[in-house]
C-alpha cells in the first residue's frame, strides 16, 4: 500500500496584483484503494491543490509538505512526480501541435516505465482502452487533443489514466462539461482502474453528480483554501440538498 500525505500546505500565486495566497493549510492523507472527493465552491482552491501536487510552475509552495511513501514530492520535477506514480487528469487539457496521440502515448508509457512497452501488447491495450471509453479509433492518428471537443479531451485523459496505471490519480473537475452519457463512460473508466485496488483517487469536483457513479470513501469540503468539513459519502448527499451556502455564508471567499 502507498500513501500520499499532504501536511499543512500553504500555496500562493504571483499575479499582477501581487502575491495571492490560495491554500492556507491543507492536510490530507490518501492511501491506495481509497477514493477521496474534494468538493467546494469556485475559487476555493480545489484545482490549486491538484496542480500543486502535479508541480505546475505557476504555484508557489510557501510551507507544508507533500510526500509519497515518505519521499519528498515537492523536491521532484514535474516529470519525476509522474514517474513516481502521480497522475493529474487535467481540467483543461492543452492541444499539443505536431505530436500524434499514438506517438505521445507510447513516449509517455516508455518514460513512465523506464522501458518501451512490448509493441504487440501495447497496441492491443490502447485499442481496448479506447474502445471501452468509446473513443474513435482515428483519434490515435490525430495530434494530442487537437480539435477534440471538451468531452473528447476528458475521455482521453481517462484513457491515459487506464494506460499509465498511476498509484495516485488526481481528477481535476473531470466531470465538468460532460453530458450524462460521457460522464458514465468516464466514470466507468475510473472505476475499472480503481477496482484493481492499486490506485488511490483524489476526485475534485464542483458538483455531486459524478459521485453517483464514482463512490467516494471520504468527502472533504474546501472553502477559502482550507478543508472546512470532512466526512463519509453522506456529506456529499447533504451538499446536494443544501449546496455550499452554509459554508460560504460563514467565510469570505477569496480568489
Amino acid at each position: 500500500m502507498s500513501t500520499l500525505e499532504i501536511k499543512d500546505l500553504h500555496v500562493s500565486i504571483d499575479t499582477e496584483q501581487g502575491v495571492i495566497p490560495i491554500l492556507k493549510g491543507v492536510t490530507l492523507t490518501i492511501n491506495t484503494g481509497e477514493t477521496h472527493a474534494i468538493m467546494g465552491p469556485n475559487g476555493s482552491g480545489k484545482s490549486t491543490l491538484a496542480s500543486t501536487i502535479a508541480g505546475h510552475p505557476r504555484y508557489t509552495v510557501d510551507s507544508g509538505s507533500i510526500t509519497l511513501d515518505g519521499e519528498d514530492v515537492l523536491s521532484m520535477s514535474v516529470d519525476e512526480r509522474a514517474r513516481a506514480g502521480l497522475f493529474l487528469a487535467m481540467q483543461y487539457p492543452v492541444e499539443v501541435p505536431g505530436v500524434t496521440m499514438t506517438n505521445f502515448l507510447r513516449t509517455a508509457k516508455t518514460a513512465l516505465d523506464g522501458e518501451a512497452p512490448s509493441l504487440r501488447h501495447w497496441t492491443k491495450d490502447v485499442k481496448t482502452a479506447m474502445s471501452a471509453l468509446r473513443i474513435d479509433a482515428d483519434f490515435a492518428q490525430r495530434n494530442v487533443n487537437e480539435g477534440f471537443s471538451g468531452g473528447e479531451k476528458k475521455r482521453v485523459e481517462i484513457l491515459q489514466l487506464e494506460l499509465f496505471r498511476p498509484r495516485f490519480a488526481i481528477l481535476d473537475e473531470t466531470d465538468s462539461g460532460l453530458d450524462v452519457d460521457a460522464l458514465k463512460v468516464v466514470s466507468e473508466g475510473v472505476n475499472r482502474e480503481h477496482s484493481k485496488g492499486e490506485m488511490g483517487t483524489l476526485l475534485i469536483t464542483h458538483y455531486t453528480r459524478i459521485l453517483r457513479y464514482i463512490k467516494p470513501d471520504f468527502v472533504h469540503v474546501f472553502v477559502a483554501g482550507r478543508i472546512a468539513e470532512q466526512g463519509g459519502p453522506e456529506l456529499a448527499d447533504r451538499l446536494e440538498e443544501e449546496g455550499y451556502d452554509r459554508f460560504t455564508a460563514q467565510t469570505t471567499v477569496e480568489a
Partner: protein
Amino acid sequence: MAETTHTEISPDTPLDGELGELDEKARLGAPSGERAVIDGFTEEGERLPGGDDGTEQLGFKKHSHGNAPVIPEASRGERRRSFDIADFPTLTGLEEDWRFTPLKRLRGLHTEALSGTAPAVEVTGAGNVTVETVGRDDVRLGASATPEDRVSAAAWNAFGDATVITIPKETVADGEVMVSVRGAHAEAAAQHLLIEAKAFSKAVVVLDHQGSATLAQNVEIVVGDGAELTVVSVQEWDDDAVHVSSQQAKVGRDARYKHVVVSLGGDLVRLTPSSIFTAPGAEVEMYGLYFADAGQHLEQRLLVDHAVPNCKSRVTYKGALQGDDAHTVWVGDVLIRKAAEGTDTYETNRNLILTDGARSDSVPNLEIETGLIEGAGHASATGRFDDEHLFYLMARGIPEKAARRLVVRGFLNEVIQQIKVPSLEERLSESVERELAAGNL
C-alpha cells in the same frame, strides 16, 4: 539624394532610394481602374505601411516590419519579368519583394559581377535520364522561365555552363536523380540548371546544396503534359553560405508537380519557387520546411499562378525557429487569373517559435480575378511552444528535453514525409535532430 513630391510617399518619411526607382514603383502601384479595393486590403492581400490617408491606396496602417514606404504591385501577375538586368533598378531594400531580406548580408549578390566559381554540380542516381553540360547559347535555356528580380536576372547574365537534366518522354526514372551542388568558394557566383520532365515521364530530382558559397541560382523546371515530377531542394549549406535561388516551374496539361524546400543551413537563404500552370487539369503541391537558428535568415517567397482553368494547388510550409535573431520569412502568393475557372487552391504556413529573440514573418496573399472557382483559401499561424505544452507532456513522465524534441520533430515530420525518398528522409530527420541538439533543447 533627390526629393520626391509623389503623393504616395509621406514627405516626412526618410527615403534611401533614388527618385527614378520611386517613380517606377509608384507607377506599378497605380490603380488599374478595374480592380475593386477592399477596405483593409491592398491587392497584395495585406495592409502595408507608409503613405498618407486620402491617397488611392486605402487601408494602410503601420505594419510590424517598420515604417519603410513599400509600394505594392497592382497585381502579382504584373510583376516585371526580364532577362535584362537594367530592367530591375538597383535594390534598396524598400521593394515589396525584398523588404524582409537583409541586403547587407547578400555578400554582393545584388551588386557584384557574379564572376566567382560556381559550386560543382554532380548528378548521380537514375540511369535512364539524360544529363548534359551545355553552353549559354543552348536554345533550351531561358525558354521556360524569365527572371522576376534583379538577382535572378544577374544570374542569368553571368552563368557559364548550365546543367540540363532531361527525363525522356514516357520514361519512369529508375532511381532518384541526385544533383549534388557543392560550394567551395566565397566569391559571388551564378548558376543555371534546367530540369525537363518530358510528356508522361515520372521522376524525383533532389538538389542537394552543401558547402560554402555565395550563389545566385536559376533553376528552370518544365513539367510536360501528363508528367509527374518531384523536385526537392535541400539547403544544408555551411554556416556562412548565401544562396538566392529562383525555381520556376511551368506545369503542362494534366501534369503532377511536387516541389519541396528544405532549408536548414546557411547564413542567408532566399528561395523563390513558382508554379505556373500552362494548361488545364494539372495539380501542384508545394511543401517547405525550414529551421532557423540564431542569426540565420531563411526566406521563401512562392508563387502559384493559376492562369488556366481546372487546376489544383496545395501549399504547406512549416518552420521552426530558435535562438537570437533567427528570422524566417514566408510569403505565399496565389494568383487566380480571370481565365482560371474551376481552380481549387489552398495554402498554409505554420511557424513554431521555440525561444525568445526569434522572428517569423508570414504573409499569405490570395488574389482572385474570377468567382467561378472550386475553392480558394489560405491560413497562417505562428505559435510558440509554451510552458503549458511543456507541463502537459512532463506531467506524463516525459523529461523536458524529450518533450521539446517530441513537439518539434512531430511538427516538421509532416513535411519530411512528403519527400518519399527514404534515404533522404532519414538524413533530414537526423539533421533536424542535430539542429535541436545544437539549440540545446
